[in-house]
């Protein structure tokens, strides 16, 4: 018995030592051509570009599937040609004619033609249980009319005829979204099983014309991409392999970054990023995220919130600087309008600052000299910017308490929180709204137009003039007139709206000094095509 145990231990040690030497790996590319990005990718549900809607899956699809147009990295205000080399817009902005480049190759070697674009649109509107489909169906294109709405008069022309008027800026930015990432129709059709439009196959293989193709997606383990050797839409990237290992705990991401097992960490907390700032081996790169964290106030469930002075009092009561400097450790920027920095229509003005005396005066004026009590609903997880939702809620409670408003914090799992919020049942709610497509309409509509049954509707704030204004601004291109309308919209929201904007979080990357020339923005993510590894 003893000899057996000793033998086993020795055998184990030998295997450990033997296995301890660096392994021979099957992938052809070594560390110089590989980028490892540590992040939590466990939210990915599908890598089918027409179905993908989570952060991890849409970023991966962005690199595997080219779209008609694309935003250059760092400039989210004007699209540039990608698969389409040019396009014409009809006077009523309802018909778009895209002229496709000739000779674009998919990873399979097949040539991209208009038939692939049509098949892509057919998939969006026909795939069942598609969380991303609303991006297209909101424009009036659905399974019944897709054959008339999206047509190809010849193999290199696509005509999209929108059934109803829709914002041209929003339309073009949606055309850059992975939901219409063009799939190789010949390949996908060959792998359809049980009428699934090839969806199951696309979870383990890619069929796009982007610079990378899929090696493997092992759920909860990693997503791995390799260079698409048939890519001809641009110069071949120097990075030939991109790996996202699933690392859910931020401390472990930081450990992996320090040990060199990861080149970039995307999920570090605010305090971890702050501690990296002096370290010469790493750089913290930050850019404002296209999202905001806000305190919502239901204007019917809490009688006090029917008075505009009370809504303003809350906005005077909040200690914005304290939140950004102390809680977020600088991992956020001030924002009080509904359009975040980086988008057309962003308003940098900050009409409110921390002024408890003014807040109390307004409460008195509104008939609440002794304040009032309300429930504050918050999630149990993280708030944007790398802090816990509970900590942020506690800070808000404290700020409101100083002016006489008692906030009773109720922390629930986020799915339960959203169910309550969507059912118009909250009193105060701490939430975050992030970008779907980089057009100001994507923010103005939920916050201003209650007929969309989005955020304004959830708080029962039915403002008809504002809804009309939002609709009008949405139908315009990026002109000074559009800018003036958004200024008006922002003004109405800050003065009368039930949203107290708290901050715009930063997207922060902790980058090893081995990585050079890294560019990124909140929509495209990290630009793998231009970065280089030392």
């Amino acid at each position: 018995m003893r000899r057996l145990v000793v033998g086993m231990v020795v055998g184990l040690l030998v295997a450990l030592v033997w296995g301890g030497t660096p392994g021979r790996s099957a992938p052809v590319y070594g560390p110089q051509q590989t980028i490892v990005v540590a992040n939590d990718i466990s939210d990915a549900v599908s890598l089918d570009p027409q179905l993908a809607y989570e952060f991890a899956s849409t970023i991966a699809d962005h690199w595997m599937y080219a779209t008609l147009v694309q935003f250059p990295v760092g400039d989210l205000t004007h699209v540039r040609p990608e698969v389409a080399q040019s396009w014409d817009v009809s006077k009523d902005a309802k018909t778009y004619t895209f002229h496709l480049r000739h000779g674009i190759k998919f990873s399979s070697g097949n040539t991209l033609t208009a038939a692939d674009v049509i098949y892509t649109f057919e998939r969006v509107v026909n795939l069942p249980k598609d969380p991303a489909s609303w991006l297209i169906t909101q424009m009036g294109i659905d399974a019944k009319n897709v054959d008339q709405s999206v047509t190809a008069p010849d193999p290199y022309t696509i005509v999209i005829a929108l059934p109803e008027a829709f914002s041209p800026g929003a339309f073009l930015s949606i055309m850059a979204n992975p939901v219409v990432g063009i799939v190789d129709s010949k390949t996908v059709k060959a792998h359809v099983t049980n009428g699934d439009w090839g969806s199951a196959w696309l979870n383990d293989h890619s069929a796009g014309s982007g610079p990378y193709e899929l090696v493997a997606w092992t759920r909860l383990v990693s997503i791995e991409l390799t260079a698409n050797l048939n890519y001809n839409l641009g110069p071949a990237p120097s990075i030939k392999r991109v790996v996202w290992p699933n690392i859910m705990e931020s401390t472990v991401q930081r450990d992996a970054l320090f040990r060199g097992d990861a080149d970039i960490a995307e999920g570090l907390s605010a305090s971890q990023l702050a501690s990296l700032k002096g370290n010469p081996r790493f750089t913290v790169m930050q850019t404002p995220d296209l999202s905001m964290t806000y305190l919502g106030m239901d204007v019917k469930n809490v009688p006090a919130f029917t008075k505009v002075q009370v809504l303003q009092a809350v906005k005077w009561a909040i200690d914005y600087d304290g939140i950004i400097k102390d809680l977020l450790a600088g991992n956020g920027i001030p924002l009080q309008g509904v359009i975040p920095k980086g988008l057309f229509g962003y308003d940098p003005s900050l009409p409110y600052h921390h002024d408890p005396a003014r807040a109390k005066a307004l409460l008195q004026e509104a008939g609440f000299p002794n304040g009032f009590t309300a429930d504050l609903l918050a999630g149990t997880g993280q708030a944007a910017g790398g802090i816990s939702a509970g900590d942020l809620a506690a800070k808000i409670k404290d700020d409101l308490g100083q002016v006489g408003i008692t906030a009773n914090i109720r922390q629930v799992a986020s799915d339960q929180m959203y169910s309550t919020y969507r059912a118009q049942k909250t009193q105060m709610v701490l939430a975050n709204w992030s970008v779907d497509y980089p057009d100001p309409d994507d923010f103005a509509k939920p916050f201003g137009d209650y007929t969309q049954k989005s955020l304004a509707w959830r708080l029962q704030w039915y403002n008809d003039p504002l809804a009309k204004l939002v609709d009008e601004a949405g139908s315009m291109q990026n002109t000074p007139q559009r800018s003036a309308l958004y200024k008006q919209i922002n003004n109405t929201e800050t003065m009368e709206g039930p949203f107290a904007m708290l901050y715009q979080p930063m997207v922060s990357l902790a980058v090893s000094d081995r990585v050079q020339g890294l560019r990124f923005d909140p929509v495209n993510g990290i630009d793998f095509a231009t970065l280089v590894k030392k």
Partner: protein
Amino acid sequence: MSRYLARRGFLALFVIFGVTLITFVISHVVPADPVVAYLGDHAPPDLVVKVRAQLGLDRPLPEQYVIYLGGLIHGQLGVSIMDQRPVSTDIAEYLPATIELSTFAMLFAILIGIPTGVVSALHKDRWPDQFSRIFALGGVTLPVFYVALLLLGVFYFALGILPGPGQLSTYTAPPPRITGMVAVDAVLAGNWWAFGDALRHLVLPSFVLGYASAGLITRMSRSSLLEVMRQDYVRTARAKGVRERRVVIRHGLRNALLPTVTVIGLTYGSLLSGAVLTETIFSWPGIGRYATNSVTSVDVPAVLGVTLVIAIIYSLANLVVDVLYAYLDPQIRYT
């Protein structure tokens, strides 16, 4: 014995049926919406209504339960809402990793627990006893994620002698999937580099889990060895001149192990139900993480599937332990 097994199997069916019913009811009483969890918060209300119907969640509860039971009888566990894949596929993907981790964790638990318990018993109330008991107490009381982060911080971050999270390093080609257990698959494929890498990656998470489970084994082996060493036959063996080591191991430990076997079996069953914190920190793709994700997104088919599998594992573990007991102790007979 076979009648006993048949009766136990039959009773287990009742348990499992009850478990699925309770889980089903609880999952539908919770005020969270699985459709919104799946579609995300930006989904317009009409899309939510449409997808709810596509998922069959708009039907009355009893009808949904009957449909589920019908599928169960045919061996189908339904389709996971958050994954859009059959639950059986999900479980087949994640369970082997948990089996691999739990087995190695069990080995560590035994390697830590039994020697500690024996040392404790033989040096009762002196410093080796105190030390062992505090060590065992640490395993039970220190939070698992704390121990995990601490050991990662020391052995991976500071010293770099053990690898970080995951089952394999980024530059090791994974072996072809046969069993789903990476170390086993590496052996089956003859890929010794991957096998070594997989073993190195197993050390820390198994140790963490094993240490957390060792406490009970230490206590059990200590108390049962103390009891056995007081017996007449031990005194007789000593009187006959048998060497002390042989007395302890051949006469003492062998009999003291019986109750410990029960504890080991039940601990193994509990490890197999997944260890979500360890799996999260070490990025181990096991059933614990899957179970937690499915609970937080109210993915009812996945919750039911996982609960079912865990109920079966526990029932089997109990049965195996009972049978093993009868095998090890000739005084016990089942009818």
